């Protein structure tokens, strides 16, 4: 395999643009207050399929939910001590047309 670079941020956004999202409501994923610097959040930065977890400043993590595929990876990896994780409210979030 030749091309082993990182997918560009714009390319990943474009790919998420294939999907139908219904936005609204409160963010369904939140880092618990005071846990933003917990190094146990680091693995999910590279594993999140939608690239929504970031290490904005070294050692400080953020998450956004626009484009969330609701896969659950961060829920499993981070656990209840570090994050609050709920499914979006009914009728919101990603709506797969193929699945």
């Amino acid at each position: 395999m030749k091309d082993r670079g990182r997918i560009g941020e714009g390319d990943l956004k474009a790919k998420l643009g294939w999907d139908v999202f219904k936005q609204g409501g409160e963010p369904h994923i939140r880092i618990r207050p005071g846990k933003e610097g917990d190094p146990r959040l680091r693995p999910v930065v590279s594993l999140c399929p939608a690239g929504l977890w970031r290490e904005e400043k070294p050692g400080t993590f953020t998450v956004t939910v626009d484009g969330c595929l609701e896969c659950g990876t961060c829920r499993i990896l981070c656990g209840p001590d570090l994050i609050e994780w709920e499914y979006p409210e009914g009728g919101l979030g990603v709506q797969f047309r193929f699945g």
Partner: protein
Amino acid sequence: MERFEVIIAGGGLAGLAAAYTLAGAGVETLLIERGDYPGSKNVTGGRIYLNPVRDLFPDLWASAPLERYIVREGAAMVTPERSVTFFYRGDELKEDPPQSYSVLRARFDRWFAEEAEARGAMIIPKTKVQDLIRQNGRVAGVVAGGDELFAEVVLICDGALSPLGEKAGLRTWPSPRHFALGVKEVIALDAAVINERFHLEGREGAAHLYVGDVTRGRFGGAFLYTNLESVSLGLVLGLDTNSAGENLHVPSLLEDFKASPEIAPLVRGGQGVEYSAHVIPEGGYGGLGTLYGDGVLLAGDAAGFALNLGFTVRGMEYALASGYWAAQAVMEARRAGRYDGATLACYQRFLEESFVLKDFRAFRNNPAVLANPRLFRHYPELAAGILKDIYHVPAGPKARLFDTVRSRLSLGELFMIIKDLKGFTKL
């Protein structure tokens, strides 16, 4: 106060199978789905095996919107520089009825929900079950869309993460070692192009699996399934990051796979139409939750019903069958007039007697054996290396075939292969 006989939380295959079965038997059934329609939150890699579930839903399959029946199987071991692939084609795969189909869940589940509704099930979409109602120590209903809805029994079919299974006390917060992450693209291609590229005719389909460098040698693999007018292309990666080194960037991994020489010519000119992801239960027998309690049953991915058998990865049949058997357990409880755990325990017995828990017991060693890291780096390198030597013609004299192969298989290597083969006998 709204009251139903049965409330089902979640419109995936388990919930829909239960609703279809219960409604068909005249049981008052309400299914609550958080997506715009059943299927809108559901993801599969792409392949369903019908033989185990055909007779549980005898009227269902003739008109089911499945994609293509699989007549060509491919498996590849991939290294950064080369790959070894084999294909299997067999006349029996073309016989009617076919054993396996590619499937897109948003289409299939939506249709399945309409079939359940036609039998009398009530389905409320766009509504999330937020909580369970407990009364006198038993589950007595759900809170959904702000309303309290009561039922004799609640079927929890809310998928692999199962927040409701946790609320019912049947599961704990899931452990990474029991899960893998699947990511997938659906890439639109003309049916005629698919048929030509994959050597298919009509509605025949192909299924390819890839192991090795697609996950950079980590636990997991990649897949390609042909649909009617698209291909499902994706990969699966174990979530147990404690045992791994640096973290892999999953979106890039999928891009690299798509750009690889194994895939690029197959999807050239295709247009991506959907990008999806979901976690997959991979814990096997050891990853199963408690299946029932007072007034409550757990089915499908929520119960952990998915199995990685190496060459076949299965979940949908277990979801369908567990939904069916959950429905049978509800009807047993209905006859007894009691929905306590002791009565609903027949669900466990039904599953033990069916292929579901028989398979889970038979394959209980799979997660440990398949976690062998040599499968994902060393063996692809070894196989590709041997074939490289075999196919190479040097300027001078060529070594004998046996010597060529033997040079890659030191005594230490042979010892390790025998050791691994001993492990594989447990598969």
